[in-house]
């Protein structure tokens, strides 16, 4: 191939400068309009009457109650889904069994259900006219229109986050390391803590971050089951709605600004996790190849270790 052809070929994989600049400018303008401007609007509206009004709005008892309820809800929902996610990923990634892909689809199910429908199903189970309604009323247990219902609805909408992050990751890593640990005499727990967990820690953290963001921000499902009792069953997003509908714009945006901050922190941690996980993978990939000491065939000769990029394949 002549040098001329090489140059033509390489030129063929990009565009002329003005096309590049125009496309970049268009993409950035779109992002600024749809993503940056709404964030800026939240900050401006929250501080419209100055910092004092902002703090006043956040110090209000109902706002505090909403913040507390949101934190409690996330503190219950995220760990429960974490335990489930690890258990499900272990069962699905480490073993072969019939109906596995069906089970994986079922785990994804909550993502494809509208949040409003998610709330409705709990009303149908626990509500006054629901399946368990009469029994619950008899025993004076309140689930719907009370905190337990909010927690349940939140668990439902954040159900798949951690499992679907871990399943592909653990599948790609295979079983060899765990099998070696077991054969060398480690117990199941030791194997999990010292072999599996270090391998999946970034994926785990990634799933937890996304799960937490959704748990704290969920609106539709929680709105159906909450009953909207101020100071008692309003989470932060619901409190934002109440304030907004009462034309307390500054207070609404003040609480919203906390949620926007949560979103930004989530994005930062997520990027750091992606970056660390990528770097660790590169470090492993750059290691010199091991000399073939024992006759062994790798599981997948072409790709001994498959890198699974973390992905916010998210929430539909």
């Amino acid at each position, binding site marked *: 191939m002549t040098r001329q*052809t090489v140059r033509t*070929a*390489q*030129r*063929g994989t990009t565009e002329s400068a003005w096309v590049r600049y125009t496309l*970049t400018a268009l993409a*950035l303008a779109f992002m600024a309009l*749809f*993503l940056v401007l*709404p964030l800026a*609007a*939240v900050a401006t*509206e929250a501080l419209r009457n100055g910092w004092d009004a902002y703090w006043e709005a956040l110090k209000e008892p109902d706002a505090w109650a909403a913040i507390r309820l949101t934190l409690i809800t996330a503190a219950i929902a995220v760990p429960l889904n974490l*335990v*489930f996610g690890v258990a499900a990923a*272990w*069962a699905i990634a480490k*073993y072969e069994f019939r109906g596995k892909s069906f*089970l994986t*689809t079922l785990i994804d199910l909550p993502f*494809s*259900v*509208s*949040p409003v*429908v998610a709330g*409705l199903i709990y009303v*149908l*189970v626990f*509500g006054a*006219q*629901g399946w368990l309604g009469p029994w619950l009323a008899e025993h004076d247990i309140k689930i719907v229109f009370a905190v337990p219902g909010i927690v349940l609805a939140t668990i*439902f909408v954040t*159900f798949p986050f951690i499992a679907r992050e871990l399943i592909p990751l653990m599948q790609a890593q295979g*079983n*060899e390391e765990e*099998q*070696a640990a077991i054969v060398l005499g480690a117990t*199941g727990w030791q*194997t999990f803590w010292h072999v599996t967990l270090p391998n999946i820690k970034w994926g785990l953290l990634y799933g937890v971050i996304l799960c937490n*963001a959704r748990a704290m*921000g969920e*609106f*539709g499902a929680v709105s*159906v089951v909450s009953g909207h009792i101020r100071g008692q069953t309003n989470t932060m*997003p619901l409190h*934002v*709605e109440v304030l*907004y509908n009462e034309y307390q714009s500054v207070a609404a*945006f003040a609480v*919203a600004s906390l*949620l*926007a901050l*949560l*979103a*930004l922190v989530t*994005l930062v941690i997520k*990027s750091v996790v992606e970056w660390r996980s990528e770097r660790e993978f590169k470090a492993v990939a750059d290691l010199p190849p091991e000399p073939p000491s024992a006759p062994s065939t790798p*599981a997948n000769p072409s790709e001994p270790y498959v890198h699974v990029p973390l992905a*916010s394949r998210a929430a*539909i």
Partner: protein
Amino acid sequence: MTTAALPSSAAGQRRAPARVLPGFNITLGYTLLYLSLIVLIPLSTLVFKTFTLTWPQFWEAVSSPRVLASYRLTFGASFIAALVNVVAGLLVAWVLVRYSFPGKKIVDALVDLPFALPTAVAGISLTALLAGNGWIGQYLEPLGIQLAFNPNGVVIALIFIGLPFVVRTVQPVLEDAEKELEEAATCLGATRWQTFSKVIFPTILPALLTGFAMAFARAVGEYGSVIFIAGNMPMISEITPLIIIGKLEQYDYAGATAVATVMLVISFVLLLVINGLQAWQRARTAGNSQ
């Protein structure tokens, strides 16, 4: 997996390698129990409740003029928003993969903002921007363009919600696309546009369609961001999830259940479509790498 690493007694059995690791029964058991309690049993109540309705009751609930108008709005607005997302998402993904510019990492991270930002916050801030006295609204209002409190607002909220789907499905495919193919096309005399439309576009088409379907599916069920900006006028700007809430607030559980069942069936169909598209994409990628 090497059979050499296994106890010799297990070497003959095909499933044997799995048995080396403990915990299958307990993890699968817990998975099934938790899945049933949180997802399957509650969802099944929706189906059972629907079967307690007579057919005329069901039909009346899901096909009254107000509900039909809400389907038109929900699906129409979701379709338009997903189309806009395909164009804008492809543009953003292309720029992020192919070009370099200052602040690219921040822009890349920001793409996921709609996943991370609570929908209610998105709803009120978009409304604040587009209302008659908002930053953008104040310039459009005199021109007779109204983007809030009507179906336009619904479309805009859904564009916001769906943006990351197309970007995040197309981005990895573009990153993996082999430049050699483009070089070959150029050497054979193709213009850049021909290379794009005949070489690159077919490669990313499955991903684009997947992103479209995901954005559409999410938009159909979306509630939080839409209700603030829509104005929620019956027959005009009332989305289907809001119809369900409205029926619930009037204690019309049967009606709410019927409409919810329609939505649930549609989400299942969309889930199947998305799974099919992803399988197509995987087959495409596997075919390329051989």
